[in-house]
């Protein structure tokens, strides 16, 4: 049981990352893999600032700003230098590895007995239950903010940018600026997941972000399957489903581990799981 509670908490922590992937991949139609770097960047900034006894109200905006700068860089390289989005993401992600090392000063930062997000408010004496409420509140606020943003006039322009670029340009929208803004938001969200995970697991590590993009991708694809299936057009419902996708993703991984799969093969299991959720709907459609 504890096993699944942990998976649920991880799922909630990866919710922001999944929103980030949802924004870059589904709303802007840009395959952005800056994720691996900006997630670790979020963790690194969190770790260093916690060690230096910074309060939450300083750490949180710093993490958001760091992620946003990383995303904006990818966006600028992609739009202004007209470099393929995938390559732009790889470039920034690679450079971020050195940045993250420089930020942390070494490859691993343990955060033992430091006050964290989870000791901020106490809803329950059980630390896991307490973490559950804090993470839930956090993610609900984020969903409310993004949901609102996507319904505003600016949000409409962002959604249209990934949908019909010629149209939004003709309607006076600077699509380059929209894409840079979108990637900044996406990677700020990704960094927020790094912020949460670092505090939840109690350390920041230089390799914590390796392959994390697949977690977001898997979550979004699970959500998308349901969104298409139920014909959901409501923004908030879509975001809630993306969060659900992130939780389901972690639960399936937990299940895989509990079946006795060697933890060393977890990444392979993850990749196969994502392949299954991407591939199965297509295979069944072809058969029908």
């Amino acid at each position, binding site marked *: 049981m504890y096993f699944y509670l942990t998976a649920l908490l991880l799922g909630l922590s990866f919710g922001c990352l999944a929103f980030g992937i949802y924004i870059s991949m589904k709303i802007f139609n840009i395959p952005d893999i800056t994720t691996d770097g900006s997630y670790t960047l979020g963790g690194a900034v969190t770790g260093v600032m916690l060690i230096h006894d910074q309060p939450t109200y300083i750490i949180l905006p710093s993490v958001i700003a760091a992620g946003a700068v990383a995303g904006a860089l990818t966006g600028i390289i992609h739009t202004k230098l007209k470099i393929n989005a995938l390559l732009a993401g790889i470039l920034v992600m690679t450079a971020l590895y050195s940045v993250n090392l420089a930020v942390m000063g070494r490859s691993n930062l343990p955060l033992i007995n430091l006050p964290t997000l989870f000791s901020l408010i106490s809803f329950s004496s059980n630390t896991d239950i307490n973490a559950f409420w804090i993470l839930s509140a956090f993610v609900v606020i984020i969903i409310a903010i993004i949901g609102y943003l996507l319904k505003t006039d*600016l949000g*409409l322009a962002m959604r249209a940018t990934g949908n019909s670029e010629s149209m939004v340009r003709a309607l006076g929208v600077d699509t380059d600026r929209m894409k840079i803004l979108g990637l900044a938001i996406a990677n700020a969200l990704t960094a927020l997941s790094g912020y949460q995970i670092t505090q939840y697991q109690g350390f920041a590590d230089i390799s914590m972000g390796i392959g994390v993009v697949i977690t977001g991708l898997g979550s979004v694809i699970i959500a998308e399957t349901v969104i298409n299936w139920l014909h959901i057009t409501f923004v908030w419902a879509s975001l809630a489903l993306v969060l659900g996708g992130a939780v389901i993703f972690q639960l399936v991984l937990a299940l895989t581990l509990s079946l006795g799969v060697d933890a060393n093969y977890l990444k392979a299991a993850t990749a196969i799981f994502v392949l299954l959720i991407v591939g199965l709907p297509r295979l069944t459609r072809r058969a029908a």
Partner: protein
Amino acid sequence: MIRLTDISKTFNKGQPNEVMAIDALDLTIAAGEYLVIVGSNGSGKSTLLNLVAGSILPTSGTINFDGEDVTRLPDHRRSKWIARVFQNPLSGTAPDLSIIDNFRLAALRTGHKGLRIGVNDVFKARVREKIATLNMGLEIKTGQLMGSLSGGQRQALTLLMSVMDDCNILLLDEPSAALDPRSADIVMRTADSLIKQFNLTAMLVTHNLKDAYTYGNRIIQMSEGKVLHDLSAEQKAGLMQNDLFGWFS
């Protein structure tokens, strides 16, 4: 008023596949003029329209709108003058957004897209009223995704969207080419009535000589980046449809 002075556009300059799409063209389009542009493929019609829209920038020459030099402005900065209907109905609308959201963006064409929710009941009522003028029954479907509509419906809505906000210039790039004859007719007639109602300066690129004959109050034929024929309103009124066919033989 649109004034193009000594405009040239060369694609792939200095390469073996160099193409001179527009060759030292001078063209003045008066306010309220509905200019029809015909010409064979590769004559430079679409390039001319793209130059006016700002989707491509000229190699040399200047472009003025109402006396203001816009030569170097990109397309999204010319939207305060220009509304545009594309040949492909998919290009003029966002398929994954609802009809009402598409109209909201169109209503902000010259304005700022900020952090407020602009789709409210007043706005919805205003859009429904506009759409009802099309007599297509779409006014009750404003929550539906744009992508669920037919090409003709989307093209007609794109036209309406162009007059949701201040508009001086309407660019029509073969707006009915991808449509069935009935939808094409509706789209062309809607365009014509909007141009008259809002006193727009319009440019229509078309391969349909019947449309070229029926609509507009000036017609030019382009060939190899230059204007071959240029008929004013009176001359066009005296033109026979067969004369037009003669231009292409």
